[in-house]
């Protein structure tokens, strides 16, 4: 049992197997389900810990399985995959606890947790994918695993939202598939290698490579919510809060952004991509998305929709960082993958708490909620300030590196205004929420008080996850220069990518 070959597969299996078992459990076996979920999460955490240590010491973990001639399923752990796997694992654990609390007494829990586990398995598989073929497989599996979660409630709106989600993501998947096949035909099996492998192709292929890039980015951009492929994201808000949290912080949106990072750095190679003029195009698309998403967020009253548009805007920071040539910009984009995940999940947990406890769905109903639910609102405030870019919360660190990277790459004339506009718009749509929560008096009654005020403001399983993630968001920024911080790991990735 060679750990080197089996570890990636085990990491994927540690959530896949509990998920499959959960499908066949009786609907009323709550304890067993909880035990399976948490055991799987704990095991995965342990395995990921081993993987982090190994990759840091330049160990090679690879699982390889041939599906067809020339098509190998490869699970390979490198620095970038470890970053995403760790984020997914930690946030999955937190979200599982939250989901257990959130879905108390609701139907179809076996189905939910089954697909929940499948979703994480797909995300982890995608993170560990060692070539484009494997990536495409897990990308589609992710879509399939998340569809039942979006449609979970079964209301007509949920089914409709899920259908729109599917239309967009499957369409994107098709584009990604065609692009990957084309790439395969041109360049053979494209394994993910730091620095990219396509620069060795002769010059007459360059035009085709540009077209392939456009196809790939369009396919990935659907999940990463690049304008104008973002239409599914606000619609998918019909899902229960744990699903929104997972979709927007960890799984789907990040998968798209992660894919873009992979394509630019490990398939094309950042210098080659710049040579082909692809980075500028990507940067412009990212810039437009950042501003457009923030503007639309400003006009929303529904809390989850506002957060959805905020996601549209914030995830493009990752694409922007990718488009900035140079290690500093790279660090900014990659570290924002982690930072945005932690901050956004906190916001969604808090939104879910408001909905579950007090029936609050829109910003105008949030007057005075800071007195009734101070801990949740504190977590929300920390995350919101992080999104705006207030130091020392994590979001500031990402913006710092993006700004510095843009200056060093000579792209500052349009990147810095985009960053500033986005921060100002973020302030414009987050600060009023904080004002309402902390400084206004509540109305006569909450819309629907499901959980009455007791010793804790809401149930424990709903309360602790946002507090934990808010603390992580604060710590990630405050101790950014400490060893083992996400920033340090992102710097390591950039170092290996640029061969420094």
């Amino acid at each position, binding site marked *: 049992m060679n750990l080197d070959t089996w570890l990636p597969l085990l990491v994927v299996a540690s959530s896949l197997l509990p998920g499959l078992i959960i499908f066949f459990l009786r609907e009323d076996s709550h304890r067993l389900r909880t035990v399976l979920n948490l055991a799987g999460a704990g095991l995965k955490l342990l395995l990921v810990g081993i993987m982090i240590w190994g990759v840091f010491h330049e160990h090679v973990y690879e699982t390889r399985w041939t599906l067809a001639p020339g098509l190998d399923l490869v699970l390979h752990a490198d620095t970038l995959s470890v970053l995403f796997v760790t984020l997914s694992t930690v946030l999955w654990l937190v979200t599982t606890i939250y989901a257990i609390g959130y879905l108390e007494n609701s139907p179809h829990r076996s189905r939910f947790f089954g697909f929940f586990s499948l979703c994480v398995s797909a995300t982890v598989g995608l993170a560990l994918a060692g070539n484009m073929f494997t990536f495409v497989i897990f990308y589609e599996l992710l879509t399939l695993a998340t569809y039942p979660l979006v449609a979970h409630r079964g209301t007509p709106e949920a089914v409709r939202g899920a259908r729109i989600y599917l239309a967009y993501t499957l369409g994107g998947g098709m584009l990604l598939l065609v692009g990957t096949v084309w790439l395969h035909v041109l360049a053979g099996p494209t394994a993910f290698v730091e620095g990219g492998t396509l620069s060795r192709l002769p010059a007459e292929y360059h035009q085709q490579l540009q077209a392939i890039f456009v196809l790939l980015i369009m396919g990935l951009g659907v999940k990463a919510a690049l304008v104008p492929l973002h239409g599914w994201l606000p619609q998918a808000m019909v899902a229960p809060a744990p699903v929104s949290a997972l979709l927007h912080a960890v799984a789907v949106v990040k998968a798209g952004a992660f894919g873009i990072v992979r394509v630019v750095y490990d398939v094309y190679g950042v210098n080659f991509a710049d040579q082909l003029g692809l980075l500028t195009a990507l940067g412009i698309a990212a810039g437009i998305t950042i501003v457009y998403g923030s503007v639309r967020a*400003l006009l929303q009253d529904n809390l989850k929709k506002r957060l959805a548009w905020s996601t549209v805007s914030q995830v493009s920071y990752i694409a922007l960082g990718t488009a900035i040539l140079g290690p500093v910009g790279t660090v900014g984009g990659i570290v924002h993958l982690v930072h945005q995940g932690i901050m956004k999940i906190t916001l969604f947990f808090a939104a879910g708490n408001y909905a579950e406890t007090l029936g609050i769905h829109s910003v105008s109903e949030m007057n005075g909620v800071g007195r009734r639910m101070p801990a949740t609102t504190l977590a929300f405030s920390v995350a919101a300030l992080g999104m705006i870019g*207030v130091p020392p919360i994590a979001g500031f660190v990402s913006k710092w590196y993006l700004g510095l990277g843009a200056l060093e790459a000579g792209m500052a004339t349009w990147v810095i205004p985009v960053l*500033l506009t986005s921060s100002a718009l973020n302030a414009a749509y987050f600060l009023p929420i904080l004002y309402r929560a902390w400084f206004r008096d509540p109305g006569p009654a909450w819309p629907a008080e499901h959980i009455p005020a007791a010793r804790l403001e809401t149930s424990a399983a709903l309360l602790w996850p946002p507090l934990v993630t808010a603390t992580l968001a604060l710590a990630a920024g405050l101790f950014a220069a400490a060893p083992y911080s996400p920033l340090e790991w992102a710097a390591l990735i950039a170092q290996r990518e640029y061969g420094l």
Partner: protein
Amino acid sequence: MNTAILVLVWLLPLSLLPLAGQRYAGWSMLVAPLPALLAALMVPVGTSVSLPWLLLGAEFGLDETGRVFLLFSGLLWLAAALYGAGGWAGEQHGTRYRVFFLLAMAGNLGLIVAGDMLSFYLGFTLMGLAACGLILHPATQLARQAARRYLAWTIAGELLLFVAVVMLAMQHGGALDFAILQSGPHTGFVVLLLIIGFGIKLALPGLHLWLPQAYAVTPAPAVAVLGGAMIKAGLLGWLRFLPPGDAAPGGWGQILLVVGVTGIFFGTIGGLLQQQPRMLLGYSSISKMGVLTTGMGAALAWPTAAPALIGALVLYAAHHALVKGALFLGLGLAERGGLRPWLLTGLGFLGLVLAGAPLTSGALAKSVLKTSLPAEAHVLVLLLAVSAFATTLLMARFLYLVWQQRGGSTTQLPGEAIVAWLAILAVIVAFPFAVAGSDLPLANVAPLTLGILLSGIALLAASHLPESTAIRKYRRAVTRLAVRTAVAIRRTARAPQHLFGSLHRAWQNCCGALPQALVNRLAQLQRPARSEDQWPLTGGLWLAIGGLLLATFMLAG
């Protein structure tokens, strides 16, 4: 030990946050500014501590400037904390008030001991945002408006400073400590950003629009630190980021001179037009910040005189902070409990100090400033004299307004508030003697007496100037613009939807039926009902395919 004290300067206020909701929390806050005072009095200059794991690598240190700042800021925060310890700001949202108070204190004190750009920026941002919470505290309509305006300006300033800091970091290869700023001049763009960014905090004319309303609504202890200590952070920012002689070419100094002088007179004239004491004090601050700006400009324009000028500026800042803070605290007492005689006397005394009466800190500060100005700047000396005269007028009007608007209320004033105010008064009285011993200058009498005379006349001929309608019109125009922009954004967001909708309708109207008809016809071919129709068509197709196959074999073969 010393390094620990330096860290505690900002860490202690932060650690008291969890206690903000407890009983007697107001009293426990009194310990928060103590490390700052300890550091100012006991920690030797030159101490520094480096925390590489904090943020992106943080450094803290104490230099002469920092010591003075710590001293007056610490005293002011202590006084404000005592003033509000018994619940001045109201018990209903006391926790909220204390949370923002502590955060603002931590930010203010933290930026003073900051040794690198990012720690300074962190403290500055924290202070700026927390102050907004204090402005919002009364939760009235006016407070909301004031806070919104303050926030907009503050955020704009912070964003500009962010760009400046990033550009400076890039220029010096990612290094962040202040020491590296000594090497090499900044680019003009960076200097501009720094001037505007900190200028917003200092309420330079044109960038001051947030200040009067903010001062009008904030509770008394908070406005004391807001107008006393926090506004000075802007000056400290300039001192740290624009070390004279190396950083900025002399041209910028000239610009700052002009801006400063404009500020002096703008502040004075604006203040004279005010109806409310609080807003008058605000404009007075603008005027005084103008003096500081002028001094900064002089330091940049004449780098050789810089060290002396900076010392004078810091002294002036200390003087103004304490006096302005005391003015606000006293005004707060008057607003709540009516104008007691001793209160009026105290306020009058403070007015004299600010105007620069002999044997006061005002006089000391002004004379030190005058002497440190280089010989070429004789115009400035004259302007300073004029400003003293103007300040006297302003203070006279202030006292007049306070007298005029005295309420008849005789509410019991909290003992701790009175004690706090008196303590600050004592410090102010002792201040000049502590600094200069018995060596106090006696100049400035002429402008002072002239001012007092003129105020008397003005008082008799007082006429009510209508509140400027221009400001109201301007405000209305801005609101209209904002509303129109929001509507426009909403419309553009819906535009593609509308476009698509109308395209779809057009398509439906002209050829909508066509595809459906086509599909129906084709579907008819599938329906097994009328099989008699079907066979001929299918049979024909089948024969055609057979024929085509044969043809393709033959022709290509």
